[in-house]
């Protein structure tokens, strides 16, 4: 009897405890603590903020097929009074995408359906997409934004630019990038000397700090064999051949006579707009500081005479030098741009090539996929591709080999480390080193993480503008090709934006001014590093270009007659100096700022219709311009135009 009662007591007690566990467990849910704390927090605020109802909350984002319960604890996302509150209650920054439309994990990643901190952040087994650290957040923009420049995502934009410039797609398949132009190596044996090539292959950036050529970390032996192999390619593309040197360059005495002319032409041609000299100057072309110790005089002469003949596709203009000027420029380069360090080294004993150098060199050339970028001897392009990276951002953690490294085991940290130290995870890896900085490696990682195979509804995606197919024909087309205008200028969406967009040039500038500018291209903006070179084009050629511009680079809608009476001019002057403070950025008579172009004589340069429309909305013509839009009335814009046109 006693035993029975005891058993009954114990079992009922156990039963009671078991019953109690479930409400207790519910009572002590992690998220409830946050909700209680939130309600306590908002009750202390001076402003009235609605307390949260206790319970799980979730956003169901149907279009992205996501359910996010983050809002269960992140309760103040829409509450401006909580801007400075501690997490998880802080207000969400204002962005262009409302979180109620897009949810949380579409951008932040993490496990949306989880209801504990640890699981929602996603650093748990079998969850491959933990919450992005802040520095990689912009990767999510890339899922939908395929355009080149993503607004408000500077890191992603930089990453995409770097991937394109480094020509990653020569070895890795990736969507949305254009292959870069790289020089053909045919004829390299007639162009460079052996010592230079060995040093270049071993460390390209030592010669040209901004080169896109990476360092393949070759051993001395490999560099030697590869050089011997490359030096056997003596003939140029399309069977072009070097002409030999003119008599004026034959001897040192002859050359000395030309130095002064050469130096003048070198400066007038503004070579340093594109070519740096020992690291200073432009950056779009190779460094000239030691070029005389790299390239032969014959090659320099032949190349400057007609760049595209020896190097098809190169964006160097064919300067209209006569033979004497050409010889003078080469003489000047030969006397000035010498690598004195290697020039003073004792001469090396003649090279005895490894008997199997050709086969071994070719094997190295193929192993490192040099043909991914460079043409050589009609070899098939890209024989040894690297891994495909189209969907690298969706790679699962178990697929990644971290080797023996002890870095954090996440995809972003793997990518950053790999980009910085390409062969760190395994010695058999072949990827070359680009010597990226931490910031660059981070930006590239951001761009790569955005390459996922996640299914995104088509209507959410933003694509880049289609490629321009503009291709000028006739005499003008030939000149544009020959003078490599697209290397700096954009016309109808094609070309670079190193210099101004020419699409509306004839609506913008007066005909006489354009012709004069070809003759003496002066600097409109004092702060620019890249300046228009003097191409020494003939009068006939200038006429062809100006006539074409007057027909094509013009829009009738930008014509406008501006009344320019004394009243308008003085009203414009007041607006210029006293209302809008234009002198902060523009100079007139050496007074004013350096930011925009000087406006002296602007009345002889620009057309009134252009000034008017430009002032009304500068970014309609140049989206990147930092000129403020002052929301001018027509009357104000006309008065300003009248004033500016009076400056002749």
């Amino acid at each position: 009897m006693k035993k029975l009662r005891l058993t009954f007591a114990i079992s009922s007690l156990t039963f009671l405890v078991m019953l109690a566990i479930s409400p207790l467990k519910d009572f002590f849910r992690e998220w409830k603590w946050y909700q209680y704390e939130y309600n306590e927090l908002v009750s202390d605020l001076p402003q009235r903020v609605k307390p949260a109802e206790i319970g799980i909350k979730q956003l169901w984002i149907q279009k992205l097929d996501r359910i996010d319960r983050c809002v269960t604890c992140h309760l103040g996302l829409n509450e401006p009074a909580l801007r400075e509150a501690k997490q998880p209650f802080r207000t969400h920054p204002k962005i262009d995408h409302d979180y109620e439309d897009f949810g949380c994990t579409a951008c932040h990643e993490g496990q949306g359906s989880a209801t504990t901190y640890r699981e929602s952040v996603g650093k748990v087994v079998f969850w491959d997409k933990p919450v992005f650290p802040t520095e990689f957040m912009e990767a999510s923009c890339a899922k939908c934004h395929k355009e080149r420049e993503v607004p408000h995502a500077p890191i992603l934009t930089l990453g995409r630019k770097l991937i394109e410039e480094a020509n990653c797609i020569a070895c890795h398949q990736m969507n949305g990038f254009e292959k870069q132009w790289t020089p053909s190596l045919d004829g390299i044996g007639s162009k460079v000397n052996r010592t230079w090539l060995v040093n270049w292959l071993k460390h390209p950036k030592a010669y040209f700090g901004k080169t896109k050529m990476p360092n393949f970390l070759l051993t001395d032996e490999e560099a030697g064999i590869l050089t011997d192999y490359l030096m056997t390619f003596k003939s140029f593309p399309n069977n072009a051949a070097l002409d030999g040197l003119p008599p004026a360059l034959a001897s040192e005495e002859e050359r000395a006579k030309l130095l002064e002319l050469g130096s003048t032409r070198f400066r007038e041609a503004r070579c340093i707009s594109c070519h740096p000299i020992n690291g200073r100057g432009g950056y779009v072309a190779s460094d000239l500081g030691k070029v005389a110790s790299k390239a032969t005089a014959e090659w320099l002469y032949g190349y400057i005479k007609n760049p595209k003949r020896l190097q098809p596709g190169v964006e160097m203009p064919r300067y209209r030098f006569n033979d004497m000027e050409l010889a003078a420029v080469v003489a000047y380069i030969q006397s000035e741009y010498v690598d004195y360090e290697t020039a003073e080294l004792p001469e090396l004993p003649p090279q005895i090539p490894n008997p199997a150098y050709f086969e071994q060199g070719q094997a190295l050339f193929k192993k490192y996929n040099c043909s991914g970028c460079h043409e050589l001897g009609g070899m098939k392009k890209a024989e040894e591709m690297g891994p495909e990276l189209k969907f690298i951002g969706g790679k699962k953690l178990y697929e990644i080999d971290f080797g023996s490294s002890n870095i954090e085991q996440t995809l972003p940290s793997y990518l950053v480390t790999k980009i910085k130290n390409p062969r760190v995870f395994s010695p058999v890896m072949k990827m070359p080193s680009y010597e990226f900085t931490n910031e660059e490696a981070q930006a590239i990682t951001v761009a790569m993480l955005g390459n996922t195979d996640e299914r995104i509804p088509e209507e959410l995606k933003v694509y880049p503008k289609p490629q321009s197919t503009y291709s000028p024909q006739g005499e003008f087309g030939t000149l544009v090709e020959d003078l490599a205008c697209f290397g700096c200028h954009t016309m109808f969406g094609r070309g670079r934006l190193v210099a101004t967009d020419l699409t509306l040039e004839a609506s913008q500038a007066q005909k006489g001014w354009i012709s004069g500018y070809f003759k003496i291209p002066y600097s409109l903006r004092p702060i620019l590093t890249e300046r228009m070179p003097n191409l020494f084009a003939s009068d006939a050629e200038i006429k062809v270009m100006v006539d074409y511009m007057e027909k094509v680079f013009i829009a009738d809608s930008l014509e406008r007659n501006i009344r320019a009476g004394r009243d308008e001019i003085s009203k414009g002057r007041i607006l210029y100096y006293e209302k809008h403070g234009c002198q902060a950025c523009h100079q007139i008579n050496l007074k004013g700022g350096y930011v925009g172009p000087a406006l002296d004589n602007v009345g002889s340069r620009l057309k009134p219709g252009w000034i008017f429309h430009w002032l009304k909305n500068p970014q309609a013509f140049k989206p990147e311009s930092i000129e403020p839009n002052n929301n001018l009335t027509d009357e104000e814009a006309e008065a300003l135009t009248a004033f500016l046109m009076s400056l002749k």
Partner: protein
Amino acid sequence: MRAGGLARQSSFTFLALLLLIACARHDDAPENGGVRQDTLEPSSSSVSTADVANLTYEQRQGQHLFLKYCQVCHGANGRGDGFNAFNLSPKPRDFTDHRYMNALSDARLLETVSQGGKGVNKSVLMPSWGGRLRKNEQGYIIAYLRYLAPSSH
């Protein structure tokens, strides 16, 4: 007597159990209501990256806009020493001047950015950005200005 003892004993056990469970839960959700100060910030990845991690989203956006639009006069570090500054009189504002900057309300800063110097009775050399930058973007710039001169200083 015996039954009473049993009841006392059982209620005691029950309370002890309850306490145990509470303690166990409490370990997972630590003090101050379960907010884990040390882990809530995104974990710093083992790779060192630029100082973007120190800025809030708004400050980062502001920094980017600042470098594009404001830097020429106000300088990359906001000290009023941009390369165009020496052409200007009066000189551009030094945004690291805590005392001056902290006295200005957000609304006043926003007015200056959007309407320029002329809108707030200051030099016309400061252009108005209201036509170029959207309200959001102007707010980002203010957030960055607050970063340059934190109010707690």
